[in-house]
């Protein structure tokens, strides 16, 4: 691998349990996520993948009755420490959702929404930032002439890349993606997969997917979940060729009951 760093881990969970009210959605999850790698989270529906993802940027705080036990260390600091402001966490840990969710605003205002909040007011700065982010998300050529148009008029695939660009404009360290291609056609999906490959040079990416081929294609490491537990966490190649746990193999080969 070309990016060989000594400090390879950027965020990790330590013995995390998570509850929606009385319901325990995650049990004792300990995972290291490596810097500038793509980590895929797979597992059957309802096993807690989204829950884990949303734990990493404290989006679960918004759900009434949700409760976390254990620690989530981001660059060594527990983001669930009472001192930590979730708003700052979310600024550094970006998120892309399953369904493209652009704001009902112009493309430009979508991209610049985050930076403006943190105080970037200069029009030229914002324009430069929009261009860079859109280029990173490989959307620039398609929208450079229609930046003032409503983001709602874009196609689903374009909307999703816009959402990625919007997250990138915040210059996050980590990008969380929850089934970002599940609502898209094959061509848009391929574009986003290429994009992820490109982005991992700069960003740490954690992606939830139901598409085994996708996980195999794009990720470096894969974690397999089942009913709230981390069953196996290994290099993607190993998971898909020679997993340690039989359950993992059954799931990947589609023999799951």
């Amino acid at each position, binding site marked *: 691998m070309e990016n060989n760093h000594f400090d390879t881990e950027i965020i990790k969970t330590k013995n995390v349990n998570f509850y929606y009210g009385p319901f325990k959605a995650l049990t004792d999850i300990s995972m290291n996520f490596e810097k500038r790698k793509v980590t895929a989270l797979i597992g059957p529906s309802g096993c807690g993948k989204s829950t884990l993802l949303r734990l990493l940027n404290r989006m679960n705080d918004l759900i009434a009755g949700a409760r976390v036990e254990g620690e989530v260390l981001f*660059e060594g*600091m527990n983001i669930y420490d009472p001192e*930590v*402001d979730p*708003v*700052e966490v979310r600024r*550094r840990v970006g998120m892309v959702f399953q369904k493209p969710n652009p704001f009902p605003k112009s493309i430009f205002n979508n991209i610049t929404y985050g930076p403006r*909040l*943190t*105080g970037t007011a200069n029009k030229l700065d914002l324009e430069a930032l929009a261009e860079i982010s859109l280029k990173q998300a490989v959307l620039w050529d398609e929208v450079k002439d229609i930046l003032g148009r409503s983001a709602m008029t874009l196609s689903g695939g374009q909307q999703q890349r816009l959402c990625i660009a919007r997250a990138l404009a915040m210059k996050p360290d980590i990008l969380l993606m929850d089934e970002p291609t599940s609502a898209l056609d094959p061509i848009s999906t391929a574009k986003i997969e290429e994009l992820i490959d490109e982005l991992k040079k700069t960003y740490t990416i954690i992606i939830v997917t139901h598409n085994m081929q996708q996980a195999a294609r794009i990720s470096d490491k894969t974690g397999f979940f089942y009913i709230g537990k981390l069953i196996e966490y290994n290099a993607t190649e190993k998971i898909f060729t020679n997993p340690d746990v039989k359950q993992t193999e059954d799931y990947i080969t589609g023999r799951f009951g």
Partner: protein
Amino acid sequence: MTGQTVSGNMKRRYLKQHLFFGAVRLSAIILTLALGGILFYILANGIQVISWEFLTAPPTDSMTKGGIMPAILGTLYLTIGAITVALPLGVVAAIYLTEYAKQGKIVRAIRVGVNCLAGVPSVVFGLFGLGFFVVFLKFGSSILAGALTLGILILPTIIGAAEEALKGVPQTFREASLALGVSKWLTIWKIVLPNALPGILTGSILGIGRAAGETAPIMFTAAAFFTAKLPGSIFDEVMALPYHVYVLATAGTHIEETRPIQYGTVLVLVVLVLGIDLIAIVIRSYMRRNKRW
């Protein structure tokens, strides 16, 4: 986890949030105080006037003494009349709109009509009642004319509430019944209506409260300044609580002298109307909590 400038920026952002949340809470407090203040004031001034005699005796000494019984009765008659008119019409219209009508121009027109009717000022209802029921249909100023005027005034409220209640009945209930070969009307009558009944009921109660408190629509159509006798038929004029308050508070030479009676009448009216509303609110929140589906 942040540098100096960023955290300064953060402070400013949270300051704005605090100010905004302060304003938002303040508005809630103002509304609470407004209601509380008005109710407290009315209760404090009205309670000493209320007695058995006040509630059951007619006014005496050109309305400077005595009770308000004819006004209570009159309001009762008018309100019962209004709901008798509005409830069947409103429920039928709501059934048509939710169960039968296909979305189209006519339904849209009916909806716009209901919305516009809901927005007609109460004094215009009064004028209409005067022009149509009192003059054209020659009902004269009477319980009948007043009840009809109030009835059409609350019709949109009833339609809206009934529609909401009907829409709240799960589609599966209808499908299950229709699939058993039960006709559409029987399905509505046996399955849909019973399940929508609590919602329709609350809507009607709110409509009753509204009708009981209105003044302008009955001013020219039903309300009498003073009647020596209780009404003998629906073609007689009646006294009514809201109109009685208005008359005592604004007209005549005894405004200051009759203040206690005014407070008492206002209290009776408020207890009546808000009591009715409160019943509806309680029924509704009980229903929501114990939804069977």
